[in-house]
């Protein structure tokens, strides 16, 4: 848990002031102020259409700012690109693109290679190691269309790891990932934090926010709250962010993974998973 004094003395990982982004007439982000200290694992939380993806894209200058200022690790993003890694939503690329898992991960080295230079043996080795790190070592030469959604997500994660950045911005890295993989990814993110990196993650499952993250940024067009999870992740702020219809209650028991499986699968499981008991 980062103490506040530390956070003030150290440079901020992300320092956003008065950030406003508009598509046409409607503002998507309105007057956002946000300061994230270095070395935290922060969830970006808010309802659909709250501007979570737009926020990340505005930091990365992928969408134009209508107003405001963004400092990444103390200076404008333009001068810090190498120290920032971006994991886009899985659905933003064509997974039928003719390339392999290893090749996608190697793209993470393109930034430091600069123009024209080709990735060499060292870059390939780094990329392979990153694939191993996310448990995808056996799939290096697999065509990316032949990977499951969770595996594709892990390839994206490996591409960010090989960038060896100081600030990681991840847009829904748990989407389409099974429970075991999710735990593995969370451990990986926590390792990054322990190594002093800052990780911002757009996250949808409110249930797991206190368990996975130490910081939270609640967003719904405007900033609702930001800070250490135990301070800002409260009923009041959640209600403010989600307009009263909070899809989460602290008292509610954990939703088990099996709720995602269809009825037929459940039946098949119950009939096959206890074969010994009746006989």
């Amino acid at each position, binding site marked *: 848990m980062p103490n506040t004094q530390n956070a003030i003395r150290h440079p901020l990982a992300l320092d956003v002031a008065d950030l406003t982004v508009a598509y046409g007439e409607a503002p998507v982000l309105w007057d956002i102020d946000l300061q994230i200290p270095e070395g935290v694992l922060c969830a970006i939380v808010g309802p659909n259409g709250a501007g979570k993806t737009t926020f990340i894209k505005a930091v*990365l200058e992928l969408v134009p700012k209508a107003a405001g200022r963004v400092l990444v690790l103390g200076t404008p993003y333009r001068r810090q*690109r*190498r120290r920032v890694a971006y994991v886009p939503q899985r659905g933003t690329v064509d997974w039928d693109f003719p390339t392999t898992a290893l090749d996608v991960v190697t793209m993470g080295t*393109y930034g430091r290679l600069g123009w024209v230079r080709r990735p060499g043996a060292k870059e390939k080795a780094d990329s392979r190691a990153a694939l191993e790190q996310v448990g995808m070592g056996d799939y290096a030469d697999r065509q990316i269309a032949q990977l499951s959604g969770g595996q594709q997500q892990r390839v994206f994660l490996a591409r960010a790891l090989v960038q060896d950045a100081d600030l990681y911005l991840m847009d829904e890295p748990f989407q389409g990932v099974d429970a075991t993989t999710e735990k593995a990814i969370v451990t990986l993110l926590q390792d990054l934090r322990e190594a002093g990196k800052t990780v911002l993650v757009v996250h949808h499952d409110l249930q797991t926010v206190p368990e996975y993250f130490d910081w939270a940024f609640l967003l719904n067009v405007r900033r609702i709250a930001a800070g250490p999870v135990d301070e800002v992740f409260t009923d009041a702020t959640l209600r403010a962010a989600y307009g009263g219809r909070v899809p989460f209650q602290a008292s509610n028991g954990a939703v088990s993974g099996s709720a995602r499986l269809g009825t037929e699968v459940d039946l098949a499981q119950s009939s096959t998973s206890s074969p010994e008991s009746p006989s």
Partner: protein
Amino acid sequence: MIEFDYTLRIVALGAAVLGVTAGALGTFAVLRGQSLLGDAIAHAALPGVVLAFLAMGAKAPLGLALGAGVAGWLGALAVGSVVRRSRVPLDAALGIVLAVFFGIGLVLLTFAQRIPGLNPAGLSDYLFGQAAALVAADVWLMGILGGLALLAMAVCWKELKVLLFDPDFAHSVGFPVRALDVLLTTLLVISIVVGLQTVGVVLMSAILIAPGAAARQWSNTLGGVVGLAAVFGAVSGVSGALISAAIPRLPTGPTIVLCASAIVAVSLLAAPGRGLIARWIETLRSRRTLQTVGVLEDLYTLALRHGDLAKEHPAATLQTMTARPERVQPTLRALEAKGWVRPVGDDGWALTDDGLGAVRQFARNHDRET
């Protein structure tokens, strides 16, 4: 006779250059989702060709190529600015630019043919292409232009690759996506200029799109797809040009496009993995596996319900548990051949130990996949 061979050699060489250039660079356009941009650029090049001719009063290859390139580039620029500055979607913008530029080109062409003292014969070959008209100077120019474009592609290979796969990521690591898009469009314009005289403006887009689409069926890497597209482009270019040169008054463009289409048709049908035939076989096979597993699981469910895993059950009972009862008997016989079930009595079937192992293995695999 020697004269004829020489002409034919020039034609074949020119067609090969055009096929390699258009096949390789067209693949990038296809993967960038810009297949039809090539169509708009090719049509937009026509007024440039005619204007260059009117300005020079002669058909100098370099001048005509320059005119085509500039006009094609302006066409691409027009598409981009219509999309950015208005609410007109991309497909409509492509249609508008194509029609406007091509219309202007046709008007200018008619105009040029009426000016006394000029000899515009052969200019209308730019509509459907005429390989037989190629001379050595044309092929030299095509080779130099195509070579430069392919060199630029090779130098910026990884930048173009990351642009095609994930432009947002490319931007985030510091590559200028706008500039790379301009480079890609320029390479596309060059490959169109290279092929324009041989294939013609009307069908130029086919030789950009078809080789890449066919090559994608056979390869899963970018290098493989681009290389194969170059080969396919060259093969269709050379065969089309030679056929049209051998038969008088046969326009080259349509002939080349028919050759490329044949390659596409074969690739769509016969390519391993992605081809229609391969996928059809795969579907049949997985349907059979599903039936096999289904009957095996039904038998297992019955056995569990009776608390005796070795107990036999009549085929008629199994038939009530599936949507395709007529397949139960043949499936049971297939399972018996595998040693997973054994017949008991007149109409009874029971799981063997191997069958029990198999059904549990299927269940485990199923769990892992969900």
